[in-house]
């Protein structure tokens, strides 16, 4: 307290650009990794490599966008991986039972947000730690997967196969899947919501200081419940995209995905304690994860677990960076 007046001007000088430092660091890292790839492997410079990263990680990106909302409020959502799997399972099961694709889509897209809404309410009204509520949600959704079927269900529906195989590309033969376009749409909508709507700004305020947000008259409860619902919706969309990608629903798919998602969001510069971060950073975070995988695939000799080791190291480095920048100034 005593030092307030003295340190404040000093802080001002160096802090202003600091808010963007984590995102810029991620961008720099991404460029370096891409540069390494291009210099090591000639095929790496093909644009399709980048497109493939998006194709393989479109569903991860969508889920990470939802997680960004939650983490911005200072919360966490551990249920996303299970909800993704559950959505895929429900879709596969209902399609197998012969329901029309449109109806299946609607049902599948309702389950995730509903679970998110319930978890949000539990977190807000009973004042329970998000960690434990969403852990419960995670077990519930995973359990529902095996309840639906103990084994993988293939999808043969025409709409699903079309979405899976449709390629949108140019004359040189480079292409992306429809999932990638959907993921981009989700990213754009989310970025708009966070930057230009009251809901989005309330998310930042709640993450910055929930007590103050309440006293400023902002709807604390509604915002909290909203972010878990949004995360649920994003997980549901992610689940649909995953089922487009694999053309099946499997009870044990996307296990541990929530941790990849959290890692991507944090590497993308969103601060775990809330209040600071951007959707654009999350896109970069997902790309970092994707490029690491691609590099390891290109190498061919490295075990795929190297992905995890590198992500672990990066995650630690980025948490450390956030601490050093001291983005949480109270």
């Amino acid at each position: 307290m005593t030092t307030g007046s003295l340190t404040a001007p000093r802080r001002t000088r160096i802090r202003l650009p600091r808010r963007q430092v984590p995102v810029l660091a991620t961008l720099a890292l991404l460029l370096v990794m891409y540069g390494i790839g291009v210099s090591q492997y000639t095929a790496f410079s093909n644009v399709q490599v980048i497109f493939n990263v998006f194709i393989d990680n479109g569903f991860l990106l969508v889920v990470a966008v939802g997680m960004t909302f939650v983490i911005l409020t200072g919360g966490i959502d551990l249920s996303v991986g299970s909800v993704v799997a559950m959505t895929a399972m429900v879709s596969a099961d209902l399609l197998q039972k012969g329901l029309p694709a449109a109806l299946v889509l609607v049902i599948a897209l309702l389950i995730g947000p509903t679970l998110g809404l319930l978890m949000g309410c539990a977190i807000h009204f009973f004042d329970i730690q998000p960690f434990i509520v969403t852990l419960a949600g995670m077990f519930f959704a995973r359990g529902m997967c095996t309840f639906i079927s103990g084994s993988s269900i293939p999808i043969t529906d025409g709409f699903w196969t079309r979405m899976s195989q449709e390629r949108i590309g140019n004359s040189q033969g480079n292409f992306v899947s429809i999932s990638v376009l959907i993921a981009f749409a989700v990213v754009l909508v989310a970025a708009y919501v966070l930057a230009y709507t009251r809901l989005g700004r309330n998310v930042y305020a709640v993450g910055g200081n929930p007590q103050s947000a309440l006293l400023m008259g902002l709807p604390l409860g509604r915002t909290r419940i909203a972010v878990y619902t949004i995360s649920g919706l994003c997980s549901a969309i992610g689940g649909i995209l995953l089922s487009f990608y694999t053309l099946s629903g499997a009870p044990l798919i996307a296990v541990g995905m929530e941790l990849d998602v959290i890692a991507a969001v944090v590497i993308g510069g969103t601060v775990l304690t809330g209040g600071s971060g951007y959707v654009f950073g999350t896109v970069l975070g997902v790309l970092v994860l994707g490029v690491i995988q691609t590099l390891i695939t290109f190498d061919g000799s490295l075990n795929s677990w190297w992905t995890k080791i590198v992500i672990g190291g990066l995650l630690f480095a980025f948490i450390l960076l956030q601490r050093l920048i001291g983005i949480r100034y109270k």
Partner: protein
Amino acid sequence: MTDSRPVLTMTGISKSFPGVRALHNVNFRLFPGEVHALMGENGAGKSTLIKVLTGVYDTDEGTITLDGEPVSFSGPMQATAAGVSTVYQEVNLCTNLSVAENIFIGREPRLLGAVRWGEVRRRARALLTRLDLDLDVSAPLGSYSLAIQQMVAIARAIDIQARVLILDEPTSSLDAGEVAQLFRIMRQLRDEGIAILFVTHFLDQVYEIADRITVLRNGGLVGEYLTAELPQLGLVEKMIGKELDVLEGLEEHSRRDLGALEEGTPLVAVSNLGRAGAVAPFSLTIHAGEVVGLAGLLGSGRTEVARLFFGADRADGGQVAIDGTSSSLRTPAQAIDQGVGFCSENRRAEGIVPELSVRENIILAMQAARGWLRPIPRRRQDELVDKYVKALNIRPADPEVPVRNLSGGNQQKVLLARWLITEPRLLILDEPTRGIDIGAKTEIQRLVTQLSDGGMAVLFISAELEEVLRLSHKVAVMRDRQMVAQLANDESLDAERIMQTIASGSHREEADR
């Protein structure tokens, strides 16, 4: 000023909580274009009155009118919408958002649901210009000092066409310059016709800014006075409801002969102790039984000196001698071993453990000193705690109450008791009387005098010069993170001379240049 109709009246307000009658038949009125101070000790009912006014609490009895119309707010938001805004002691804004956004969040100008950022910034700039503040409205609020944040909070409050502005202890963490800046804004708003309700513990500030004073005591109304017609002593008497013998007694007590104390080996002598970026190297001796006052503005390095003495921060260089033998104060544990106790200025964050009971809080330091493997027998605990609860007049006198339920003054006493129980030889008190009421303040001051009579050395830090003068044998003056002077507290020393030293630095410093 008084010829107009009051913008706000509260008549016959009563409010009870289970077991407590917080307000009883209180009247209050507020005229446009006045600064009206609401005064009273802790627990007198000031906060309750404000909470009733802003709709945080319902009233049991009584009516509130705004512009002659009876009103009853369901909460602060509704009150704000009606033009009654409150700025709290703790700045309730989000430091991660920009200045402009903090002013407008929740009511941003929008176009088809999208926030118009250009318009937000333009309006924020206009509003801040009106308050004569030149800030970068796009910068995060956290990059500005607490004082500026406080003023941004005011900007937010008045933007909603406020007619009544309630300032609940806005000055308690501001230094003198910042207070002056705040007062300038208050005067300007007053001249624009806004009615300002001002709550503070600082009497000087009341006399500087308030036009009118309402005094509460024990939930009842004592009276409403024009500031010009109520002398300061009279105000204090009305607040505590008794004559000020206690304070007078203290006055006689002080200014003891420094010479006698200065003889012999000092208890603690430090030379060239300093820490880069915190405080420039300084030398200071403290003798047993001596009270050394540390004066200076907020941020001048007072707390940093205290932290070096306690080993909470490690000094870059310099020597420490305790009882004449070379020693060191590198960690708090080492300092405690040498008999140093430290009551932090920040009692909420660094001192009190709010969830623990009074007894557990008091025992804490002693237990730490004994080591955690040798628990203090419960009977011994009860004895000790009982003794200090009585000696310091801690209320409620129930050692099993969680400390968070105690008033600020009583929490401070618990913190004091924690260190007294370890029988320190040097006790460092950092702002022990800030934000507590005058009764508790007097008790703490009396206690400091008693302790030093008993041979304890005290390093006493306070922003209130009168208090420093009343208690200290010697006053060390801090300025810009340097100890610029050490003045013996003799006849020639008064608040003005200390102020001058703070303002200009000492002659010694001038000579050095």
